[in-house]
Every structure is written in structure tokens, then in C-alpha cells.
């Protein structure tokens, strides 16, 4: 069975990403930066209405506009239903973006406007118009374990509360889109901002009737996806069709408003929870009624979360609205489940008068076994201890005891979990050339996690080279099958075949050059850029490779057991101040403790945790899609009124890698998603600790904080 090096030189150290300088200096070419000769600019015409039928579309006015080269209807008159504002109607390609926008505005569309339901409240209200053919709501499968009602009666303390989290959008800095460039009548190259070059290629094959061999999708770097960029999308296929019609490449990226309306979102969550515990602090029962909206898709989330409640029931209702469709978003469902569970845990601990940290530890399952025979409960206990020291939990005071003036200070914590395993069917090719250059190839992509660098670290480790000597060539759909970047699976899926490929290539190199050195292949080794024979330096790496003559070494690696695993835990602590006169929350410090098996590059690993925490902070403090019930329109489809953290909103963030010998032997586990799960929950609990009142609605905005304070005083 293959194994990771026992005493690595590079693995686990902090190595800057290979493309860091190019990205920081602006030299990196993102898909939206690509400008092939003859490029046309595509613009999408989208519906201004939230609910309608398309009665007629007249493209002719656009076709005669100056500079317009192609126009395409995406809706069908008499057939298409509009389910939300922003839905695609038509697409235009023109010489400039301005000309394309003018032409899109010239398209005449006749709508039959229908009743809409823009919010969960509006959709589920008594007497609401039945907007969707199957009804406005759909019950998910109800779950009951044990006898929750009976058990609840035996509880010494019970809380009943309703917690809410809004719909938020992905806000990718590089919007969704691609540039389509036909290389012949039946051959296309696509520069896509995607998490899956193979997925986009497959969409091109299926929707354009092309052969797979004639489709190339390239993603050298890309500006964020967070789960929302797995397919080519209607506008991507439209770009390809417009490019074919015009005979020129077409660039089609969403504008910022469309990015909010069309590019996906994280579903909302509402949870009415009854949670009971005995005097000794053990949970005895939970009864939960939950709901949420993902547009017309799933909005469910895990509950209970992390903690053990034997007697419980859960009923979830999907609420359909005339809003954009949900898409997977960094740890789908977990941030919502974590926030409502951790809020209920904190509120119950306060009612019992128990320190919330001790209350949590008392309610972990005795055995929470994950892959590799690891009991996650043991990890949680150590992680919470480490996090408590780093935040200074010994300063924690009960609610209502956190300051006499208007500025209150509070501490909160939350626990989370994730899988992070990988697929076992991906491949990496390793090529060692006679000039000494080394190239890795795979049809995976780097969505910003450092995937390119991590593969190079592995190759450099095995070949005794520096990371910069490795050309990590990914983001090309024609390379050996690679992992789509989602579910924190990229590294655990790609690292094992990379190790296999490089070891195979090294062994083949040894086999081919050993005879010329009067040695056996097993006598050869590599260290510090040198070839060693029985431990003695005999040649530089370049000299050794020249002995290959004209033929490079090429090897393809596959997944091997024992190199990757799944199942992680973590905890986060937050310290906040809250001004009870203005409702303004400032996060002063966040501590994130996280395990994720063997860490290949500590620098990119920590960057993932920082990014996850900042994403979670946005969820906790700022983000909210605001819909207008009167018109069905999104009121804040921009980056001004859709609030995100600025530099001065980012607190001190302490990242603590739970990087122990026991974790390293588990192999590689992904870390993209876990560290974003519990941040909003920890912030919510810190706010409650500070002001002595639960703010039941996220984000922790001034309005929600002041509303909660007013409600506590009976003024709501």
C-alpha cells in the first residue's frame, strides 16, 4: 500500500502558491480577461418580472442595431414560464459591450404578468396565490427517533425559540461566464470560470451535439465559485451559439445584478425548536419544525447538529418562491444547521445556568466514529480546550454581566463537522522531460484553494526538487480525468493519483538511466536536486534527465488506498462588542481550530481557513438577499446594499491547525468547507452573551440587534 513520506522535506511546510505573484500583480489571466482576436461581447437580456408567461419576443430591432453580429432567443414565446426576476430571455453579441446592451434593450418582449410570491412569508401565507403547479410548499420526509414528546415532559429545563437565517448569494468576484471560440465548424475551445472543466465540456457536448474530442475547456485561474459554477449554464451555451452564428469568439459573463439573481444562492432557514435537558446538563429531547427556500429546490439542513439527542422529531417544509435558484454553497446545509442548533444549545445552557462550553462537551456522543477508526468526540474535546485557551474563555461571564455602559462584550463558541473525502477514480499524468523539466497534467482546476501548488509540492517532494521546478498544468478538460472542485474533495481526490504518477515516473527514470551508471535502479535516489547512486552524488537532476535521450518519461497515476480519508471536526470561538444604543456589532477576534488529516501545504491550508472564517463572518454580520414583496424584485443586487465585510471589519483571526501525528496518518482530507460552517453561529452566541438577549435572526445587523433588544423590553 502506498504511503506518504514519513519524514517529508516539503509536505506540511508553508509554501507560497505557484501563481501567487501572477495573481497579486494582475498578470494572471482569468477567463473573463481572455480576449481572442475578433472577440465579440455577449449580453444577456433577463426578465424584469418575477412571475410571468412569455407571450411574444421580437428580436428584429436588436438585429438591425449597429455593431450587432448575432441575436438569440433563450425563451420561447407561448411556452416559457418566468419563475423569477432575472431569468434569461435572449442574448446578443456585438462589437462592444455597450452596443450589445443597447441591442438587448431593443428586443421587444410581451409578458403576461402573473401573481408572484417573493418571500417565504408571502408564499406560505394564508390565501397566498398558488404560483407553482405543484403548490407553494412541499413537505420533506418527517423524522422521529425515540419518543420526543414523552422525553420532553421529563426535562428539567426547556427552551422554545425560533431562529432564522436569510437567503444569501455566492457573490463570486468573477461572475459566472465563459468565452466561446470556435476553431472549426465542429470544434470549440471554451475559456470558462468554472469549478469543473470536465462538467462544462460535457454540457457543450450534450447541448451542441459535438464530439468530446472536439471540445476543450480551459480554466487557468478563476475568481471564485463556492459551489455555484459546476455547469456551462444557459448563457455559456448561448455564447457558443452566438459565436457560431457570428463566426467570431463571444465573451459572455453575467453583470453584477444578474450574478445575484441568476448565479445561485444559499437557501434560507427557519427553525422553531423546542429543546429540553435534565438538571445535570444532558439533552433529553428535541422537537423541531423547520422550513426554508431554495427558490424551487431543496433547503433542508442537518438537525440536530453535532450533539446527541436520542429522542427527537423533525419536520421540514420546502417553501417555493419567485426568486433565483439555490445552488450548492460552501458546506451546503451545515452553516444553517450549525447556527440554529448552536443557538438553541446556548439558550438552553443559559436557562440551566451552565457554562455553555461545559454544556456542549457533556452532550457529544460517546463515540462519533469517522474514517480510520477516529472518535471525533475525542478530537472535539481537545480542540475545544485549545480554542478556549486561545480566545481566553476564562474571561467568560454569564449573560447580562458583560459591561455597565452601552458597549457590551461577549464570547461565544460553536462546533462543526464535515466529510471532506474524495473520489477514487481520478488520474494525474507526470512527464519528466530530457531537459529536466517536470510537468503534471490533470483535468482538475484551482478554484483558489491552491490545488495547482499542492500537486507541485507532492512532485517536488518525491523528486528531490524545489516546488518552482514543477509545471503544474491543470484546468484543461483534455487532460486525464480530474476532480471537479466541490465538497472539499479536490485535494483528497487528486493528491493520491499525483503521488502515484510521480513515483511511477521516478521509478521509470531510474530504470532507464541505471544501466548507463553501472547501477541497479534500486541503487538510485534523488535528493536536493541531485541523483545519488548508493547514497553518493553522481549527477545533477538535469544531467540525469539528459540521459533519457530523446524520449521523456510519462506515467499516469491512479488513486491508492490509505492516502486520503474523510470526516473532520472543528470549533470556533468569537469575541464581540455590541453597542446596545446603535445595535452595531464589532467582531474583535475569532479562533478557528480545525483538523483535516495530513496537511500538504500549511500556507494554502491556513488561507482556506482564513477565507472560510471571513465568509462565515459575512454570513454572521452582513449578508442578506432582500426581496420586494410588491414587485418580486431583489432590492440589493449589487455590492453596495448587499453588505460584505470591508478590511476594517475583519478581526484578529487565530487559525490553529489540529495537526497531530494521529491526524497525519489518516492521509489527506479537504478543508475548503469546514472552517466556514460555525463562524456565524459563534458570532450569534457571542452577541447573545454580550447583550443578554438572543438575536434570533441573522445577520447580526443593527436592525436585528435593536429589534431583539426591543422585544426583550416588550417594545417590539
Amino acid at each position: 500500500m502506498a504511503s506518504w513520506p514519513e519524514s517529508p522535506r516539503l509536505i506540511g511546510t508553508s509554501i507560497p502558491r505557484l501563481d501567487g505573484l501572477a495573481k497579486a500583480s494582475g498578470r494572471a489571466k482569468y477567463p473573463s480577461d481572455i480576449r481572442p482576436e475578433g472577440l465579440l461581447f455577449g449580453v444577456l437580456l433577463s426578465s424584469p418580472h418575477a412571475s410571468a408567461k412569455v407571450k411574444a419576443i421580437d428580436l428584429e430591432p436588436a438585429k438591425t442595431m449597429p455593431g450587432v453580429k448575432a441575436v438569440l432567443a433563450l425563451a420561447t414565446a407561448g411556452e416559457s414560464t418566468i419563475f423569477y426576476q432575472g431569468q434569461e430571455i435572449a442574448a446578443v453579441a456585438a462589437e462592444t459591450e455597450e452596443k450589445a446592451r443597447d441591442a438587448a434593450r431593443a428586443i421587444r418582449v410581451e409578458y403576461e404578468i402573473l401573481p408572484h410570491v417573493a418571500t417565504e412569508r408571502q408564499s406560505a401565507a394564508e390565501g397566498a396565490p398558488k404560483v407553482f403547479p405543484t403548490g407553494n410548499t412541499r413537505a420533506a420526509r418527517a423524522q422521529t427517533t425515540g419518543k420526543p414528546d414523552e422525553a420532553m415532559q421529563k426535562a428539567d429545563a426547556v427552551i422554545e425559540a425560533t431562529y432564522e437565517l436569510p437567503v444569501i448569494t455566492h457573490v463570486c468576484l468573477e461572475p459566472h461566464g465563459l468565452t466561446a471560440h470556435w476553431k472549426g465548424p465542429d470544434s470549440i475551445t471554451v475559456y470558462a470560470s468554472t469549478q469543473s472543466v470536465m462538467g462544462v465540456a460535457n454540457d457543450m457536448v450534450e447541448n451542441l451535439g459535438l464530439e468530446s474530442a472536439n471540445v476543450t475547456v480551459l480554466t487557468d485561474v478563476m475568481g471564485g465559485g463556492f459551489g455555484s459554477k459546476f455547469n456551462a449554464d444557459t448563457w455559456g451555451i448561448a455564447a457558443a451559439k452566438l459565436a457560431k452564428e457570428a463566426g467570431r469568439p463571444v465573451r459572455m459573463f453575467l453583470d453584477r445584478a444578474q450574478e445575484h439573481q441568476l448565479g445561485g444562492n444559499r437557501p434560507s432557514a427557519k427553525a422553531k425548536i423546542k429543546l429540553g435537558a435534565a438538571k445535570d446538563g444532558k439533552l433529553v429531547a428535541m422537537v423541531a419544525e423547520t422550513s426554508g427556500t431554495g427558490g424551487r429546490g431543496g433547503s433542508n439542513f442537518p438537525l440536530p447538529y453535532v450533539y446527541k439527542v436520542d429522542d427527537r422529531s423533525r419536520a421540514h417544509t420546502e417553501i417555493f418562491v419567485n426568486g433565483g435558484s439555490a445552488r450548492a454553497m460552501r458546506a451546503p446545509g451545515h452553516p444553517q444547521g450549525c447556527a440554529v442548533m448552536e443557538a438553541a444549545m446556548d439558550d438552553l445552557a443559559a436557562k440551566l445556568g451552565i457554562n455553555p462550553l461545559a454544556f456542549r462537551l457533556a452532550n457529544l456522543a460517546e463515540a462519533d466514529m469517522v474514517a480510520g477508526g477516529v472518535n471525533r468526540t475525542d478530537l472535539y474535546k481537545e480542540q475545544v480546550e485549545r480554542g478556549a485557551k486561545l480566545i481566553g474563555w476564562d474571561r467568560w461571564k454569564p449573560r447580562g454581566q458583560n459591561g455597565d455602559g452601552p458597549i457590551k462584550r461577549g464570547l461565544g463558541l460553536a462546533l462543526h463537522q464535515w466529510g471532506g473525502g474524495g473520489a477514487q477514480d481520478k488520474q494525474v499524468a507526470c512527464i519528466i522531460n530530457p531537459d529536466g523539466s517536470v510537468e503534471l497534467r490533470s483535468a482538475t482546476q484551482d478554484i483558489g484553494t491552491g490545488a495547482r501548488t499542492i500537486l507541485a509540492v507532492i512532485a517536488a517532494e518525491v523528486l528531490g526538487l524545489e516546488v518552482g521546478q514543477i509545471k503544474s498544468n491543470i484546468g484543461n478538460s483534455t487532460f486525464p480525468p480530474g476532480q471537479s472542485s466541490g465538497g472539499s474533495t479536490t485535494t483528497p481526490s487528486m493528491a493520491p493519483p499525483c503521488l502515484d504518477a510521480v513515483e511511477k515516473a521516478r521509478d521509470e527514470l531510474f530504470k532507464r538511466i541505471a544501466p548507463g551508471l553501472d547501477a541497479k535502479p534500486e541503487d538510485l535516489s534523488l535528493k536536493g536536486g541531485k541523483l545519488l547512486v548508493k547514497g553518493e552524488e553522481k549527477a545533477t537532476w538535469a544531467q540525469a534527465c539528459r540521459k533519457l535521450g530523446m524520449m521523456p518519461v510519462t506515467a499516469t497515476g491512479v488513486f491508492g488506498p490509505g492516502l486520503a480519508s474523510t470526516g473532520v471536526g472543528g470549533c470556533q470561538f468569537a469575541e464581540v462588542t455590541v453597542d446596545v444604543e446603535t445595535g452595531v456589532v464589532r467582531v474583535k477576534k475569532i479562533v478557528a481550530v480545525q483538523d483535516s488529516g495530513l496537511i500538504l501545504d500549511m500556507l494554502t491550508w491556513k488561507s482556506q481557513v482564513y477565507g472560510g472564517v471571513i465568509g462565515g463572518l459575512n454570513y454572521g454580520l452582513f449578508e442578506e438577499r432582500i426581496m420586494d414583496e410588491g414587485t418580486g424584485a431583489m432590492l440589493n443586487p449589487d455590492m453596495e446594499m448587499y453588505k460584505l465585510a470591508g478590511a476594517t471589519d475583519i478581526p484578529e483571526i487565530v487559525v490553529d491547525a489540529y495537526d497531530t501525528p494521529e491526524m497525519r496518518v489518516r492521509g489527506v482530507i479537504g478543508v475548503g468547507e469546514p472552517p466556514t460552517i460555525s463562524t456565524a453561529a459563534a458570532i450569534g452566541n457571542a452577541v447573545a452573551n454580550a447583550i443578554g438577549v438572543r438575536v434570533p435572526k441573522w445577520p447580526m445587523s443593527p436592525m436585528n440587534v435593536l429589534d431583539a433588544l426591543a422585544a426583550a423590553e416588550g417594545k417590539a
Partner: protein
Amino acid sequence: MADQPDGTTGTPAPSQPGPPCRHLRFKGMYVYTDVAPSEEPGEYDNTIFWCQKTLKDFGPDQGFVGREDCRDGSRACYEVD
């Protein structure tokens, strides 16, 4: 379109669902390549589906895309190999 229990009309849940339509897509197919869309979810299901023909959460017939919705052989857009 048949009457629904809530009084609206629409496509009823299929009484004997067939295999998933070949155009049904969800993230798990991309990241865990051995997961089938017909596989029953665990304790909660938040899978978000789309149709590869429309690349949207509604199908060519304007009906919903979903685990059960896209096993309904009576839909005009339903296709299996």
C-alpha cells in the same frame, strides 16, 4: 395536468417511478462520481438538482427538476437510455 391534494393542478408524483431521467444532474455526480440521483438521501436531503437540457431547476416542459420529479415517465421531456 391532474388535480393536486391542495386544490392546484400539476404533475402528480409518479405512482411507480422509473429510473432517473438521463438529463438529471446534481453536484454529487461531479464530486462523488459513484452516486446515483435515485440514491435515497440520509436523514435530510438538501440536494439541488438541475436539468442538463435547460441547465435550470425546471425542465423543458417547465416542470420542476428533482429526485422524484424527474422519474416521472409521463413527462414529455423524460428520457432514459
